[in-house]
């Protein structure tokens, strides 16, 4: 499988494994204030563990899951955000943030758990056509 070009989302249907599907999971909820973000990550890891190609899009308040300084213990929650640092071990290498959210929430000034791929929101939305499934938990 070829790596996607920098600044792009790969055409996930071109996977060499014909039995795998491509899934984008949208995480747009802040961490620890409900189970949404944690369950989205669980789903991503479960899918990737079974060989499916997963892209994570951290959108709007979901970008706060990426902050290195967040503290699950303040909300008496398990730290699902720690797993973000290990996503590459599950072959989840496509982690996307829009450049609009990057600027809006001043993420350049904040230590993050990983460096996401920055894309225009229009480009992310345009990439939907390449995925078999788009999941957003609500």
């Amino acid at each position, binding site marked *: 499988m070829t790596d996607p070009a920098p600044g792009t989302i790969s055409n996930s249907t071109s996977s060499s494994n014909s039995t795998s599907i491509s899934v984008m999971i949208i995480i747009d909820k*802040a*961490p*620890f*204030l409900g189970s949404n973000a944690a369950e989205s990550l669980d789903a991503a890891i479960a899918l990737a563990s079974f060989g499916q190609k997963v892209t994570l899009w951290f959108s709007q*308040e979901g970008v*706060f899951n990426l*902050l*290195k*300084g*967040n*503290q*699950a*213990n*303040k*909300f008496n929650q398990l730290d699902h955000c720690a797993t973000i640092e290990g996503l590459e071990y599950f072959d989840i290498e496509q982690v996307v943030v829009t450049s609009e959210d990057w600027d*809006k*929430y*001043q993420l350049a*000034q*904040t230590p993050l758990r990983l460096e996401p791929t920055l894309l225009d929101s229009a480009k992310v939305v345009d990439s939907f056509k390449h995925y078999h499934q788009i999941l957003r938990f609500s």
Partner: protein
Amino acid sequence: MMLIHCHLPLKSQNMQILDLLAARHYILLREQAILSLLDPDFSVKLEAYKNLLILKNDAEGLGVSKQLNSEIPQITDGEFVELCLISDKTIGWS
């Protein structure tokens, strides 16, 4: 004086009423409402509130306490409870 505490992301359609309340009452941001302070669409207006407060525990938990305007007081859970007791009314605002 009343205490109005917000826990959901603020919505522009609710800001007009919140603006009026902020002139005479405490506005406490907690949970996701704190993130509105990082949104330029809301931060300028919120930072102009005279009695704006932030729940310290939630700001730290979300990892944003250092990004927030240091002039806005961050109060502990205990101080939140004290404020509830001394306020004429406490209103959850969403």
